């Protein structure tokens, strides 16, 4: 088949000494950038973009893609060991990765994350290889109503995330949605909710600000209060034998989440405007929803680590697809890669696969190699990361605080964001005391800025008729499923009440 001959030559391109060297450097750099809270693949790729002027375009994009990949692996590391998401794409990894670490199973969580990432990345690459042009057409058929329907589905899968307390979950989602509307309104072009007329709010509230506040500062305060700073969080041991048994356990208890994440993540990643963060959050929600043991989620389920980690790698590969075939970035990082391609004199778009096939297939070949390199390098570093956890919490707590502040500042270089991080952290601590789930708020601030404009664009298209979400062939079924899922808990409660009454 033609595809395979292209692929083989692509893999050979990726295996050229300069390229393989760049892959190894890129993956390692990415791993550490991803592991730094606040710094994600966007920062890594943006900082190193000018360096790539020194090498040919194919090598340049292979290098940047390797950083992108490495960062997706690295994001899990601080999510698990410190409880702060290393990158926005790894927020969902903290939900179960952190509890596992607190139970002394950090190595299990990290191994699961690494393997799930590998599977997610590889599955996505295979899809990419086989169906790139077809999937590009699918992505084009997703207009505003379809994207909104998909966002509705994402919210629906998360209604159950906060446990049985649905009113508190809905409150949390609404709180996140309100935060998401701060700043400029795309549709009217007017500023909204510029609280106290502080200019910093014109930019809106970044997702990473809320995530670092809630999971960095909030989590630190919570742990201090729970333990009074007396106990060390974990007693991790790391042996070769342990690594083997962890691998076995990761495969046994994480395969389901891995598959869900790989497939869903890729699909969401392919859609322009979505990207890896919504993909990983949605995969977590879906994995929990279909699980036979949903109560394990949030308390250290390997599936709960595997789903978002598989999804963020899968989605990051998926996001390359609209970038290459349509010239539309599917995530902030691919937006910068796109800029890079223009700088190297390439025109992304429908003609790229034909005009620059060597470049495209070299990149695709490098996905396979980068993935393999990333999983091996990651596994090799796990003992080091686990060892970090041996520090007593009295040392770890100030370290988390410092990393949160430095990471929060590095992302936007704004003092305004730092104050918000501290305020959100303290707020999150108190909300948690009152048993409010915070993950739905984080989800809402990620999905809100996608859901709101697409809803309003759709209604503009239909002159205000909400039936547009039901009558379009792709949007219709998705909307119906989403509404059914939202109403499902209500049905359950009703049935329980009726049964109770009957008894």
């Amino acid at each position, binding site marked *: 088949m033609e595809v395979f001959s292209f692929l083989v030559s692509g893999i050979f391109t990726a295996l050229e000494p300069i390229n393989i060297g760049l892959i190894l450097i890129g993956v390692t750099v990415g791993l550490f950038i991803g592991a730094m809270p606040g710094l994600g693949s966007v920062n890594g790729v943006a900082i190193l973009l000018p360096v790539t002027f020194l090498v040919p375009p194919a090598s340049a994009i292979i290098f940047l893609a390797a950083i992108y990949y490495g960062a997706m692996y690295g994001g899990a590391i601080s999510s698990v060991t410190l409880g702060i998401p290393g990158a926005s794409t790894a927020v969902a990894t903290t939900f179960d990765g952190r509890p596992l670490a607190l139970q002394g199973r950090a190595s299990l969580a990290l191994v699961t994350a690494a393997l799930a990432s590998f599977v997610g990345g590889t599955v996505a690459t295979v899809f990419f290889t086989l169906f790139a042009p077809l999937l590009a057409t699918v992505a*084009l058929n997703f*207009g*505003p109503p379809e994207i909104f329907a998909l966002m509705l589905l994402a919210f629906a899968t998360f209604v159950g995330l906060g446990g049985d307390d649905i009113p508190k979950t809905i409150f949390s989602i609404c709180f996140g949605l309100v935060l998401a509307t701060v700043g400029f309104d795309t549709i009217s*072009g007017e500023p909204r909710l510029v609280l106290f007329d502080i200019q910093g709010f*014109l*930019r809106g509230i970044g997702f990473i600000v809320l995530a670092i506040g809630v999971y960095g500062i909030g989590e630190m305060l919570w742990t201090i209060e729970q333990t009074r700073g007396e106990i060390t969080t974990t007693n991790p041991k790391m042996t070769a034998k342990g690594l083997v048994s962890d691998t076995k356990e990761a495969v046994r208890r994480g395969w389901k989440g891995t598959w869900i994440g790989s497939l869903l993540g890729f699909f969401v990643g392919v859609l322009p405007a979505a990207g890896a963060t919504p993909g990983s959050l949605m995969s977590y929600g879906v994995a929990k929803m279909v699980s036979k043991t949903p109560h394990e989620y949030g308390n250290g389920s390997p599936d709960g680590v595997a789903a978002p980690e598989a999804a963020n790698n899968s989605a990051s590969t998926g996001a390359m697809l609209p970038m290459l075939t349509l010239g539309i970035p599917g995530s902030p990082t691919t937006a910068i890669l*796109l800029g890079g391609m223009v700088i190297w004199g390439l025109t992304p*778009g*429908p003609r790229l696969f034909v005009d620059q096939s060597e470049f495209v297939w070299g990149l695709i070949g490098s996905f396979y190699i980068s993935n393999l390199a990333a999983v091996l390098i990651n596994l090799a570093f796990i003992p080091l990361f686990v060892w970090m956890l041996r520090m007593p919490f009295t040392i770890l707590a100030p370290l988390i605080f410092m990393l949160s502040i430095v990471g929060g500042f590095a992302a936007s270089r704004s003092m305004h964001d730092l104050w918000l991080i501290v305020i959100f952290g303290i707020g999150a601590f108190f909300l948690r005391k009152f048993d409010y789930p915070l993950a739905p708020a984080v989800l809402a601030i990620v999905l809100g800025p996608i859901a709101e404009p697409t809803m309003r664009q759709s209604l503009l*298209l239909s002159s205000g008729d909400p039936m547009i979400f039901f009558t379009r062939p792709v949007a219709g079924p998705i909307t119906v499923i989403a509404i059914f899922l939202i109403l499902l808990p209500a049905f359950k409660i009703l049935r329980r009440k009726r049964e109770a009454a009957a008894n």
Partner: protein
Amino acid sequence: MKLTKRNFMGLAFAGALTALPVTAFAQDWQPSRPIDFTIMAGPGGGADQIARFVQSVVEANDMTNRPLIPTNRGGGSGAEALLHLKDARDPDHTLMVTLNSFYTTPIRQDGLGVDIEQFTPVTMMGVDPFVLWVHKDSGITTFEEYVEKVREMDGEYVMGGTGSGQEDSIVIAYMSGAYDLDIKYIPYDGGGAVAKDLAGKQIMATVNNPAEAKGFYEAGEFVPLLAFSDERMEAYPDVPTMKEKGHDFSYYNQRAIVGAPGMSDEAAAYYRDIFGKVYEGDEWQNYLTSESLSPLPMDEAETRAYWATQVANHRQLLSEIDG
């Protein structure tokens, strides 16, 4: 004493001897810390591409002794960037890459208190024209057919753009006024998203910069109908202009580098020298050609005059839209 160039040099030389470490030439100002290179838009858009392109050229040729640090401050249609420059603590190390929200945002948001005429002109890198595009499946091949189609659909013709008061909406508003068209306008958050939804036929036409639509045009998906440039564009010689249709209207997106208000003359001269070299270099000239930008070199005084007319024009155009 009359200060001729020769005895000025002599004075400078004497000055250099008496205070050796202090350099006396104006053009010898050098940045002493990393240079804040603020971008008025989010990552991935036209302004962002240009900023990163310029940064790469500077970096690759080792033109500055301190690095340019690009930071996207696209919030509030560029309001964030404008305020950042206005309140810059170190104006000598603060630059911005602009688009037309440089003119429109201060007009639309009086409360910001930004007067762009206080900013420091550095280098005009070029101007980006706008073109009206439709999808090839629409069967429309000329502007006249387009006008007929829009009238026929009576308010149901859907166009996408980057939002009310943004560049393309100004063009669309002018066109609608001139031809009495009733268009349904859907705002998006970037030119790329607009082009994508035209490719997916979610919308029927767009006014995009050539750079944003080029990939689809080359693949035969998009058909250009009308250019809003002063003269026919080199890359699209068969596309008529609005001026040929008898309307004295052209509209460009400004791609310029400006300095913070209060930047010292020495620093401004230094940056004009650096970016002037970038402008003349092959890399930039090739970029202008491949992305269909028009060159529009001007010096400081010309830039200030240009700003004044642009502010007046935009005030007029925006009052027509909002009024």
